Every structure is written in C-alpha cells, then in structure tokens.
C-alpha cells in the first residue's frame, strides 16, 4: 500500500495493544536456577515469559535460557506418546503405544524385580528437581540403587562443604553480595547458580570499593568483568589456596578468636601412632571433645564458657595420653615450605608475587576493612555480642573445583581458607541459605545394606556416612550398590555415581541389573563419560542374544540421544505443562535472609499424549502397591496424582514437600496438610518465603535465635551449635580402618588408597589422569565451560538459542597454537589416552597455556533433537565426552578404578589430558567420531521442523484503544546508584522510594 510518493504516510503505532488473555506465574526450568516467571498467554499460546519481580530468586530478571522458554515449549523434538522399541536398540525405531499398555508393561517389569530382588532395579535420575520424591520412591520400592546426577555434577563441592562447615556453595550458601568487598570465584560457575550470581556481581561492582578475582584457566563468562583473572593450571587450585593459607599463617593474619570460638581448632587430637585412637579427638566420658585451657592450665571440655583454648603445644590428657590441638597439626602442614608461593608457583602457573599480593589483599580486607552490623545477638554459650562483625571476603566454586579427582580436598581447602579468615556467615562474607547449616556431617546415613523382596528400605538410599560402619558393603567389604557408592572405592559418595551405572550394569560388576530406569539424563551422549563405550554397553548382548542390560525404561520430554537406547519411553511434559514443588526437603531456593520454596503449576495444557514423570511415578507406585503410595485397602494413596502428593504427603508428622501455608493456612514449616495450599501458592506468585529475624541473620551455626527457628522448622534435630570441622575426625575414622582398626575394614587392595586420601586435613595431589598418563604424550589439559545461554543439552533444540551457538570450537592459547602451527578455524584432533575427537580451533589469549577448552554439550547426534541432519551441531559440534574414560588406566593387579574422586566418587571430567594434532587435508569438514543417524519416532516425524518460523505472527495483540501511559524511567541497580549519585531516588528499576506507600509505588516521570 504505497500512497502518494511525495507525501509521508504517518503510521499510528499502537502503543497499548492487548498482549495477553491471562498472565500466570510459575517456576522456570530452563536451567537449575529455578527463577520465578510470569507467563503471558494469548489465544492459547505462550506469548511472553518474563521474570517475576516479586520472586526471591531472580527479582524480575530472566536470563537468555529462561527468555527462550517458548521455543523449548514448542520444540519439534518433543515426544508425543509412549513408545515401545521395535528396532534394534539405538536405531530409534519405535511404535506408539497407549499409556495403559506402557504403565502395565512397566508395572510388570518392575513388579517382577521387586518380588525377586529389588536391587535389580537401578533407578537414576538426571537433572531432577524432585529428588525427595524420586529417592523416596526408590526407598519404597526397596532398591538401594538410586541417585540423581549429583555424582557427575558437583558432589565434591557439596560433600566437602557439608563435612567441613555444614553447608556448601550454590544451593547451600551464597556470598553476602550487598556487603562483600572481595569476591573470589573458583572455576566455571556460569550455570550454577545463574541469575543470582549475575545480579550479585552487578550490584557489587556498581556499589564500588570491591574487588572480584576470577580463578579459572579460561577467561570466559564472568571473568569478563573480574578485576583480576588468575589463569590457573587446571587441578592446581588446592595448591594455590594452600599458598594463600601459608602466607596468612606466616603473618598471623588469621582470625584466632573466630577459630577458638567456632571451630575445632582448639580440640585436642590424640597422638598415638599405631593406636586405634590415633588422630581422633580426645573426649570426656560424655563424648565431649576436650581442649587445653590456658587460663586454668588444664584439659577441659572444648565448649566451656570461659575457655581460652591453646592452639598449639603437646598436652597430656588426664589418662596420660598425649594430644595436641588440631590447629597445630593444621598450621604445621601449611606452614611447610611445600606450600610457599615460590614452591607452588610453577606448578600452578601463577607468579609467586601474585599469590603473595592476593594473600596480602585478603588480609587487608579481612582485618582492616571489617563490616559491622549493629544488631545485638547472643551466642550459644550465652555470651552477648553488641554487633555482628564481618570479614567481608566471599568465595564461590562449583564444577571447576569439583570435577577433578582432587576436588573434595580442594573444596575443603577453600572452606578452610574462608574459616581461617573468619568470613563464614558473617556480614560481607559467605552465608548459608536455609535449611543450612546442618550438623557436620548431616544425617541421615545411607540405607541399603539389607534388601528384602517386596519390602521398602529402612531409610533413604542417599545419605552421609559418618564412619566405616555406615558403608553399603558386604561382610568382605565388597560394594552392594550397582554404582559402588558408599563402598571402599568411594566411601563418601553422597550423591551416588550415575556415571558408572551403565558400565557396571553391563560388566555385571558387582552384579547385573534387570531394569535400568532413568529420567532426564542424556546418558547416551553428553552426560556419559566415554560415549563410544556407553553406546556399546547399552547395546551389547550376552551369549543368549539378550541385551546385557535387559530392560531400559526412560522418561524425557524430548527426543534426546538417550531415547533410542531405551525399550520403553514414558514421555514427559514441558515445564510449562506440569505441577512441581521446589522443596526445602530437596534442593532449596532459599536465600541467606530466609527460607523459600516454590511450585510449578501447569500454565498450558499438553497438546500431546504425555504425562509428567512424577505423576507417572506416583501412579506406578500405586500399581506396584508400594506402601507409601497405597492405602490399606490397596487403593492409591494419592488419587489426585502429583499435586495430591505435594499437598498431602508428610515425610515426618507435619512436614511435607511445601513449607508455606500449612495447617489452617497460617502456619509455615510444620503443620497438617492444607487442602488450599496450592491455591495459596498460586495466589502468592507460586512461591513462599520467610525472613529470619535480624538477630538470626548471621553466625547461624552458633546463634540460638537461628538454631531455634531451624529446629522448629525441622531442619536440624536439636539446637546444638554447629562447630566447623577443619580437622575431620570422620575422615580419620576411615583412615584408621585402613590401618587395621575397628570392626569394618577395607579389603587389602583398597587400604593404601584409603590411607592416602582420607587425610583429616585438606591435601593436594596430582589429578589421577595426569598422574597416570605420560604428560609428554598428552601435554595439555582439556576442560569444558558452560555458555550462559545454554544449559545441558536442551539448548540446541531451541530455535533462538542455537542461533547464538550452534557449534563449538576448541579454544587454545594463541602462543600454544602457534607453536603447533594451528590457526583459527583449523580442524584438529583432540587425542586422549581413551580416543580422539575432531573439532575446529579458535585461538585465544585468555586461556592458560597448558589448557584447551570448549563449550559443553553443543555437539549432537544426527537424527536427534528435531534438528536437520546437516545442522552445525551434528557436523561441527563435538563433545569431549567421547574421549573421557569412565575408568582410570589399569593399576597393579589389573584393577581399574572409576575416573572419579577417591573420597566422593565425583566424576573427574576436568582431569582430561590431551594432545592436539592438526587434521590432514582429507580429514577436514566434519567432526568425528560420527554415529549413524537415528530414526525419528512416529510422533516426532509427524511434526517436521518448519523451514520458516513466523512465531508471534498470529498472536500479535489487537489495539485496546486505551490511552498510552507515561513512560517510566528504569535504573538498573538503582539502590546502589542512589548511594553515590546526587538526586538519584532510591528503589529498584522503576519503583522508587519517593512514591512508596501509594497504591502505585512507581515514579512517573514528567510528561
């Protein structure tokens, strides 16, 4: 429509269209962060998703993944109906079946196993946010063979924290972003947790007077805005931390008062080489640990009111035994020359002067830049304090530390550094998130030593061992779990070893399984170590022609690479079509300020024949007559399915999945089930939160104001203080067993390993793969990082996100690459002891010279994810998973340990060593190894991906005729700017305090 070309036709842009028929709140699931979202629905279609401004996790922001949720929700890779395999395993050939048949088949398979030997079900869930349900289901079924993906994610981080300070990074704690002055970020953290870290960094830098140090071999992600990038060599963070500790100790720049009051630094450790009590704490008849009091010059209970504990010096116990404060052992170790900056500098690739300077900066901030909050509080011994004193240093670490075989000890080393500086749960430090802190180590212990047909376990399969007697081993010390968790190979495998399940089930080591059931875990591809091997294990047959893993049940919402390897597929919903609870019993979303939990509600009806996996589990539980899911009359206990369970299930009397609006609706934490609970959550934006009183905000482990609250909520069994365990007696108990003490001892072949790695104080050792391979043959480290806009494998099916990243490059330090004659975009082989994979190079200055890295989980298998077989993900995307072995090279006697941390069983993804070779001319063009294209299941094939996507064309809003409002000014980090810019009103975004209190507290600017 072109009018008179000499006359400008004026457009009357519609400023006030009708953009939604309805806006519903729910919880995001585009990564593990669990932000609150507001979903705009128009003509039955999801039109827009934004962050919920009132939500405690994200306060209105939403990342790229969350903003692309629409494209996951409408992905062509969605499964549409239950599937039964008809072709060979791995072919992708399925027929559609009805739910009745699918559930009948699952019930038959599972019921038979349960009646014969429940251990023959291995049930492992992936990025599961309902582990308190799935774990309980496994316990009701009676199999110990349950875990979620924590064993290949970050159990080192979780276990090290829980066994040291009763909390850990990410879900268990967070920096005090608004007060911290010095923040150290160890390793890749872009995925956990996503928005709160970004929000915190933005506020911290805007506030000013702060420093952000990123310790990471790659200058990626948040390192872009760090003040200082410490480009450390992978796996050497422990040495770096020890060198900092060495410097601080030499200068006596540690918080001795904090150590004496709140840690076991003064507890006396028995010195009795060869004895059964060597290295244990000296205790009185009541089991109370003892310390030497310098004011009375005697041995007294360590928790005496007026004690001034000696932190060094050998003492004689009343019974004549010798003992010394644990701090002396600690100090002696880290004061040794082995950990001097000059000694470690070469190994970690950081100049000694940089280490010394950072130590000096830490001391300066901790002891000369205290943050004080003038709130009186009383500690557990009744000592009154008129203020909280903070040493404003905070730290965070995740996978970068965890994914090494020395990660448990390295993570403990970081916590040790935090505690020496007096910066745990203080203003400006690192703070616990409810329901943490927990007793050290937290209960309960793992169940599963005895298994009976048709009988639930006597506890939960996942727990925290406190000594050898808690291991899940037989009388000879052999593993009783399929993943060998809680065995002498990985005694504190607090999240299991999902990465070993498929291998072990195939190898029948320690025994075969009959049914493998998995959920939301891409074990046929990017969640597997050794993809070629895993594919073989999943498809290998025994002499009778049957599969070595006879039956595989899998639930996923999408056509991922794992789907073709299952026999029975139970299609899941998208996150916008389901109920869920984000429970304090599970993976909390609380902040340091108070507890919170949340729900998902379905905002959209499935247009496919799919069911939420949790619904299916509860249904299967009733069909199998699992006691917790069945009434006395044999009928289902939760006929209303998952929402019925969420509201009415009680784990302990009065404590259920959701803490908010219990009982009559006025109670929280504990109370009888409230039939209106979900309605109350929805009314409140799908979340519940509470705020701790001011005097319970800090020093929580020693603060009765907090401990009483936590006890009332059922988070802790009693109000005893939680004393930091720098020296771990628990670890020493395992070590004593290896020395031949106690009733439960390791088999001979594991003794040296236990002796070495169960050191009660943090140690550093060379990552296993580096120690095992010839480092001249494999001179480089290879690691992955997560792009902030992608999570797991789900990103590549997303029409928008894959336009940002559709293939990955191998990033190489420029100088290293030039030495190898490699230029940008060259095709290279990445070769490890286990295999080789091909990809394209990208030169980068900001990469450690001994390291190559790439983005995680971009490469895809042809035929999967609803993508074209020529998609860049298939042709140029590559995985390091192909060349990471799940087993370490053979040791003496031929035994191959899992490629995991020896304490926790954490998958050692980042131990990988490689060399790089330029591809020959005929090798360039497409990645290898390549696997045959898998067929598409009927429902996926019936909805081919569009060539042109005009999303939104049909739901563009109609004019409402309403007059336009005045624009509102938005200042990001407004509160922080209000502190420094004259005339800047305080508030948040476009809400300002000037107008607070009115109906509409938004500032309207001049028209």
């Amino acid at each position, binding site marked *: 429509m072109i009018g008179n070309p000499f006359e400008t036709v004026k457009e009357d*842009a519609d400023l006030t269209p009708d953009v939604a028929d309805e806006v519903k709140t729910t919880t995001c699931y585009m990564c593990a962060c669990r932000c609150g979202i507001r979903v705009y629905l128009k003509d039955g279609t999801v039109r827009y998703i934004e962050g919920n401004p009132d939500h405690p996790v994200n306060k209105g922001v*939403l990342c790229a993944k969350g903003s692309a949720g629409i494209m996951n929700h409408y992905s062509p890779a969605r499964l549409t109906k239950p599937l039964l395999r008809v072709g060979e395993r791995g072919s992708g050939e399925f027929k559609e079946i009805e739910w009745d048949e699918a559930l009948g088949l699952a019930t038959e398979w599972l019921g038979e196993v349960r009646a014969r030997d429940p251990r023959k079900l291995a049930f492992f869930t992936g990025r599961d946010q309902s582990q308190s349900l799935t774990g309980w289901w496994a316990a009701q079924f009676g199999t110990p063979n349950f875990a979620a993906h924590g064993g290949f994610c970050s159990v080192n981080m979780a276990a090290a924290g829980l066994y040291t300070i009763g909390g850990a990074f990410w879900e268990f704690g967070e920096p005090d972003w608004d007060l911290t002055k010095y923040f150290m970020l160890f390793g890749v953290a872009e995925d956990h947790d996503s928005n709160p870290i970004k929000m915190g960094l933005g506020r911290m830098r805007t506030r000013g007077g702060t420093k952000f140090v990123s310790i990471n071999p790659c200058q990626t992600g948040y390192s872009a805005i760090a003040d200082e990038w410490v480009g450390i060599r992978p796996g050497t963070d422990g040495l770096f931390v020890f060198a900092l500790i060495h410097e601080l100790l030499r200068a006596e720049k540690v918080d001795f008062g904090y150590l004496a009051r709140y840690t076991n630094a003064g507890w006396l450790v028995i010195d009795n080489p060869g004895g059964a009590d060597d290295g244990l704490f000296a205790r009185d008849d009541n089991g109370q640990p003892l310390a030497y009091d310098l004011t009375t010059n005697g041995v007294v209970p360590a928790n005496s009111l007026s004690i001034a504990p000696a*932190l060094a010096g050998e003492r004689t116990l009343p019974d004549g035994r010798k003992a010394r404060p644990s701090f002396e052992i600690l100090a002696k170790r880290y004061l040794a020359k082995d950990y001097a900056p000059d000694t470690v500098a070469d190994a970690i690739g950081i100049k000694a002067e*940089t280490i010394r300077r950072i130590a000096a900066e830490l001391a300066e901030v901790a002891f000369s830049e205290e943050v004080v909050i003038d709130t009186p509080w009383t500690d557990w011994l009744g000592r009154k304090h008129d203020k909280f004193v903070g040493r404003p240093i905070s730290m965070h670490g995740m996978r970068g530390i965890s994914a090494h075989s020395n990660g448990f000890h390295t993570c403990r080393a970081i916590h040790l550094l935090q505690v020496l500086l007096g910066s745990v749960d203080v203003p400006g430090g690192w703070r616990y998130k409810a329901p943490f802190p927990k007793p050290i180590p937290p209960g309960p212990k793992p169940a599963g030593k005895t298994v009976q047909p048709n009988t639930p376990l006597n506890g939960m399969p996942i727990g925290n061992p406190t000594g050898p007697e808690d291991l899940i081993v037989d009388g000879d010390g052999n593993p009783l779990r399929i993943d060998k968790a809680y065995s002498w190979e990985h005694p504190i495998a607090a999240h299991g070893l999902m990465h070993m399940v498929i291998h072990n089930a195939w190898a029948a080591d320690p025994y075969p399984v009959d049914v493998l059931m998995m959920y939301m875990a891409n074990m046929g591809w990017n969640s597997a170590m050794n993809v070629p091997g895993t594919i073989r294990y999943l498809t290998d047959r025994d002499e009778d022609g049957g599969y070595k893993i006879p039956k595989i049940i899998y639930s996923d919402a999408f056509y991922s690479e794992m789907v073709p390897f299952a026999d029975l597929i139970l299609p899941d919903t998208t996150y916008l079509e389901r109920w869920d609870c984000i429970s304090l019993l599970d993976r909390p979303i609380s902040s340091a300020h108070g507890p919170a939990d949340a729900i998902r509600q379905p905002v959209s009806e499935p247009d496919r024949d799919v069911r939420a996996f949790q619904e299916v589990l509860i249904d299967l539980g009733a069909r199998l007559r699992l006691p917790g899911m069945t009434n006395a009359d044999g009928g289902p206990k939760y006929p209303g399915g998952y929402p019925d369970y969420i509201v009415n299930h009680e784990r302990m009397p009065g404590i259920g999945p959701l803490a908010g609006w219990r009982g009559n609706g006025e109670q929280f934490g504990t109370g009888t089930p409230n039939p209106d609970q979900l309605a109350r959550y929805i009314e409140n934006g799908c979340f519940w939160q509470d705020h701790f009183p001011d005097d319970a905000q800090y020093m929580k482990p020693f603060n009765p104001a907090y401990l009483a609250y936590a006890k009332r909520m059922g988070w802790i069994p009693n109000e005893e203080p939680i004393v930091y365990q720098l020296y771990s007696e628990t670890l020493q108990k395992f070590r004593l067993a290896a020395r031949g003490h106690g009733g439960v001892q390791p088999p001979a072949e594991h003794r040296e390993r236990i002796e070495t790695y169960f050191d009660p104080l943090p140690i550093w050792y060379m990552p296993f793969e580096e120690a095992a391979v010839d480092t001249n043959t494999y001179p480089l480290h290879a690691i992955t990082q997560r792009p902030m806009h992608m999570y797991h494998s789900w990103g590549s099916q997303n029409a928008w996100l894959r336009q*940002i990243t559709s293939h990955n490059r191998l990033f190489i330090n420029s100088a290293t690459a030039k030495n190898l004659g490699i230029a940008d975009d060259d095709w290279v082989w990445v070769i490890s002891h286990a295999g080789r994979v091909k990809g394209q190079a990208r030169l980068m200055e900001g990469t450690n010279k001994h390291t190559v890295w790439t983005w995680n989980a971009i490469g895809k298998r042809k035929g999967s994810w*609803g993508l074209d077989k020529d998609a860049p993900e298939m042709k140029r995307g590559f995985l390091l998973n192909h060349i990471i072995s799940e087993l370490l090279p053979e040791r003496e006697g031929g035994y191959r340990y899992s490629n995991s941390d020896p304490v926790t069983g954490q998958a050692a993804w980042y131990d990988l060593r490689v060399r790089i070779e330029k591809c020959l001319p005929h090798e360039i063009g497409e990645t290898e190894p390549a696997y045959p294209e898998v067929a598409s299941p009927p429902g996926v094939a019936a909805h081919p991906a569009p060539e042109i996507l005009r999303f939104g064309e049909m*739901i563009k809003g109609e004019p409402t005729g309403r007059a336009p409002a005045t624009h509102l000014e938005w200042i990001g980090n407004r509160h922080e700017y209000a502190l420094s810019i004259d005339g800047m009103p305080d508030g948040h975004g476009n809400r300002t305090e000037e107008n607070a209190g009115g109906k509409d507290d938004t500032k309207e600017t001049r028209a």
Partner: protein
Amino acid sequence: MTDLPKSTGKKLGLVIDLDICVGCHACAVNCKEWNTSGHMAPLTDLLPYGEEPSGVWFNRIHSFEVVDENSGDSRTVHFPKSCLHCDDAPCVTVCPTGASYKREEDGIVLVNADTCIGCKLCSWACPYGAREYDEDAGVMKKCTLCVDKIYNENLPPESRVPACVSTCPVAARHFGDLGDPNSDVSRLVEARGGYALMPEQDCAPVNRYLPPRPRKNGSDDEMIRAPRMLEYKDTSDDGAGLLARWVDRILSS
C-alpha cells in the same frame, strides 16, 4: 527523502553499562520473545532447526577479546548493540517511502511495515548496522524500544519498560529520557562518563554506553589496596618458630 521531526518532545533511549555486561544474551533473547509478537511481529527465523539458522534480532551481543599491547593482558569485552534512535537518523532521511520515521513525541525510530518496500537503503545508511531485514516478509525491521510495552497500561508498571532492560540479570541496562538533563538516566550518564557511539558519524545517537571501570588487577600501584606482601611474624621457613610462639599464647582474645 523522509523528514526528521525538527525536535522531539523526549529522547527516549537506553544506557548500557559495559563495566558489568557479562555477555549472557538475556537482553537479546528477551527482546526477541517480546517483539516476535509485538509491533513488528514476527521476528522471522529461517531454517530454525536446520543447517544455517538465522533470524531477525533487534539486539545482538558482539564479543571481542582485547589484548593490551604493553602488558599482554587480555580481556573479553561484550558489546550489546541495538538501534541507537539517533537524532539525525540517516536511516530515516534516506527512506524513499516514509516508512522509516522518527516519532515526534519521544524520538523512537520505527518502521511502518505497510509502506516499507524492503529496498534496504536504510540498512546501508545506518553506520551501526542496527537494522534487520526480514527476508520472508520483505520488510526492514528494527528495535522499537518496545513502543508497545513502555506505554502499555495493560501491563504492570515494572513491565512497562523495554524487554532488554527489565530482564538484564546484572542490571547493566537503563531506560529513560536522555533529552532531559535532570532525568535519572541523564544523571547516571553524567556520573559515569557515558558516551555516544561513533559520534564522528554525525548521527547524534540517543543511546549511551557507560565505560568499563578501571580493573584492580595489581598491575597499577594506585589500584592496589594492600601491601604487595604480608609481614612475616617469624623467619623460620617451616613454621617451627610460629608454633613455638603460639604454645602458651592466648590467641583468641
């Protein structure tokens, strides 16, 4: 060939903080999801699941590695870029049909899809590369500053802001009237030394960028907050002296 207004009542625009942008693409994707059903709907994607996926994006993040020639230090810089809603917008004056225009009320530069003939002159004229041609629709598209969102009383107040702004996790994006020297955004630009992108192009862009703050990386003495090394309390290199010192000392006071 199309006239610009002589002046605009307001100069609405964005202020983007390069000090804290982590390059997460939240702004770009949230923009896309709002606008694909918005004023210029749809933001078409071609081969979205295919070999070379491409689509219309009003906002794109460009990431660079910058190396300091003297120190050898490298930095990653993330640079989000969208239409800067120039006062002297050459994309408007070059438009042969009047489809590309600047609103007199608030200075927002828009394209009238009904009269755009897809000749692409505007994209050639824009020195910032901020225009996005929708091959499927045959129409030039671009950032609308969420013109259908910022005034829309059907939305709660905190949503009446460009999508890229409210969604930004680090809060690196700000929005307001840059023509009013007393507005909050103008105060912010003043305080942070905000600058216009490529002023030599004489387009008088409205958007502003806030420069990165100096990094405290130990390379510059003035930026160091502590001595370079701690004072050792004992000269023994195995700590024996310190341990002896501590035996009888009350360290906890």
